[in-house]
């Protein structure tokens, strides 16, 4: 019988709040739904009936894109580059953060600030020196070159987030292990790492999404079509099929799908991970 007791004023407030939130939900989802539905239509149908359901859910467009274009190749390249970069960031970031957070030595603070200086400076503004350097190292037109840039560029945030986590673990943990005769490496791998797994997930997502989505560095460093990443491949694609909207919408939908699928499963980690830099 509760609802009777609720004053009208509060009820209208709740409705108003719901209406506003629903309006924004539509604003966010509607364009994505239209994009997804258009992928099943023919170009003609998209022009004639952009809003309705497709007459029939045809998969011809998907087959055309998957078999007739370099799309699978772009996808694979993005997977290689992103996986490599995130692994480099997690490995090197953990090493540096662990040493900085758990050991006292001369220059510790200075080294920490050295890594953190990268937080304030957008790396893409250093693209000219990077271009010259990578050319000298013969890393132009190479996935390894991209992995190096992303790997190093992701270190400041990784060191920042992970050092905070490592510092929050009690000192007694490693001291106790040391007294038990564990080596320094054993302490890191057996005692500390299992405890910071959530932080590693945060750092991983914090870097995974921007690296997966990055367009700028591939644009500058990759010219060979067979080596292009997904966002970069999309521009090739959009140029090639500019009038065939059915194909374009399939491309866009397929390109958006991996991230959306992962997001549906891990949305809380995504939100925590991607806002990690803005929240202390």
């Amino acid at each position, binding site marked *: 019988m509760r609802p009777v007791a609720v004053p009208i004023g509060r009820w209208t407030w709740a409705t108003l709040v719901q209406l506003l939130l629903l309006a924004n939900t539509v604003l966010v989802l509607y364009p994505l739904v239209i994009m997804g539905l258009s992928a099943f239509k023919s170009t003609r149908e998209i022009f004639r009936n952009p809003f309705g359901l497709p007459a029939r859910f045809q998969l011809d467009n998907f087959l055309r894109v998957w078999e007739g274009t370099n799309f699978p190749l772009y996808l694979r390249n993005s997977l290689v580059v992103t996986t490599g970069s995130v692994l480099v960031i997690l490995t090197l970031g953990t090493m540096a953060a662990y040493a900085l957070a758990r050991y006292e030595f001369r220059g510790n603070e200075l080294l920490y600030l050295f890594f953190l200086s990268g937080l304030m400076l957008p790396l893409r*503004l250093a693209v000219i020196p990077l271009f010259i350097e990578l050319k000298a190292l013969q890393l132009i037109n190479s996935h390894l070159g991209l992995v190096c840039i992303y*790997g190093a560029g992701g270190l400041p945030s990784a060191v920042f987030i992970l050092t905070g986590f490592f510092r929050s673990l009690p000192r007694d943990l490693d001291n106790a292990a040391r007294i038990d005769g564990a080596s320094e490496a054993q302490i890191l791998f057996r005692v500390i790492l299992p405890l910071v797994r959530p932080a590693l997930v945060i750092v991983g997502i914090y870097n995974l999404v921007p690296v997966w989505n990055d367009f700028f560095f591939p644009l500058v460093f990759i010219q060979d079509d067979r080596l292009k990443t997904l966002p970069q491949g999309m521009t090739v694609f959009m140029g090639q099929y500019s009038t065939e909207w059915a194909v374009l919408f399939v491309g866009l939908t397929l390109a958006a799908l991996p991230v959306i699928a992962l997001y549906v499963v891990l949305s809380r980690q995504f939100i925590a991970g991607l806002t990690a830099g*803005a929240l202390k």
Partner: protein
Amino acid sequence: MVRHLPVLAPPAAGGFRLSRRGNRALWLAMLLVPPALFFTVFVAYPIASALVYSFYGWVGVRRTTFVGLANFQRLLGQQPFQGWTINAFWHNVIVFVILLIIQDGLALLLAILLARNPRGTRFYQAVFFLPVTLSLVIVGFQWKLFLNPIFGIVNKLLRVAGLGALAQPWLGQAETALLALILVNAWRWLGFPTMVFLAGIRAIPEEYFEAARLDGANEWQVVRHVTWPLLAPAVTIIVILTFIGSFNWFELPYVMAGVDGPPNRSTDVLGLYFYRTAFGEISAGLQEFGLGSALAVLMFSVILTVSIVWTRILRRREVELA
């Protein structure tokens, strides 16, 4: 850099202790040298080089002679560079101001609504944040198709709603192109400030709200006198991040408009201008590493100076409001 003496050495007997010390120095070196070296080669050294390069003349990718501030003088005082620089810079400022009002303002409203924990909060949070995870290239192309004057759904929706008079070639005319790009950016990013504001509001102790309500404050007064002042740290961060994002703008104008900032450079921003100067313009065939480096240094300086000064000012405001 790695001449460190571990202080944390455990109390142990003579010779054993020495070797343990040596081991630990080696262990620290193993941990620190690879990341430090990697970071130096691919971040620190390139950033430092960008500054040095801006003082040199360039022929293609070859550095020639020291020219002092000549590159900067050309960018800021010599036509046509001066006009391009001012035009692009001005557009970045417009992008920042409009995003601050529309994107961050709307985000604040949504965060305040979500903080009341209405039914479905978790669902709304997940939905609002979704576009933030999508590639700007995908978002840009998607909206480019939607904004197509003839076949795009934006104009079609306007016609269906009886607002056909408002239908126009959004990206094709100088008056609307930049605004259209800004709105697409807001669509993509809205969830980010929303979640940061929401986390900020949730960090405010519940008693403050209760106390205000007990004192008879209405919804608006609670927001104005409790939420807003105590949200100051989140506001600081969002203002700074919006500023940095606006001055790094590149993907959306590149994908939706083009590398020359069409139509008629009405969507040109510093990011595009920098890319064109460094790696070549389709139309003009200009490619100059000296000018490009100088432009990068200018952008570095603006972003860094404004971020630091504003952080100071906004932090002071946090203290005053708290």
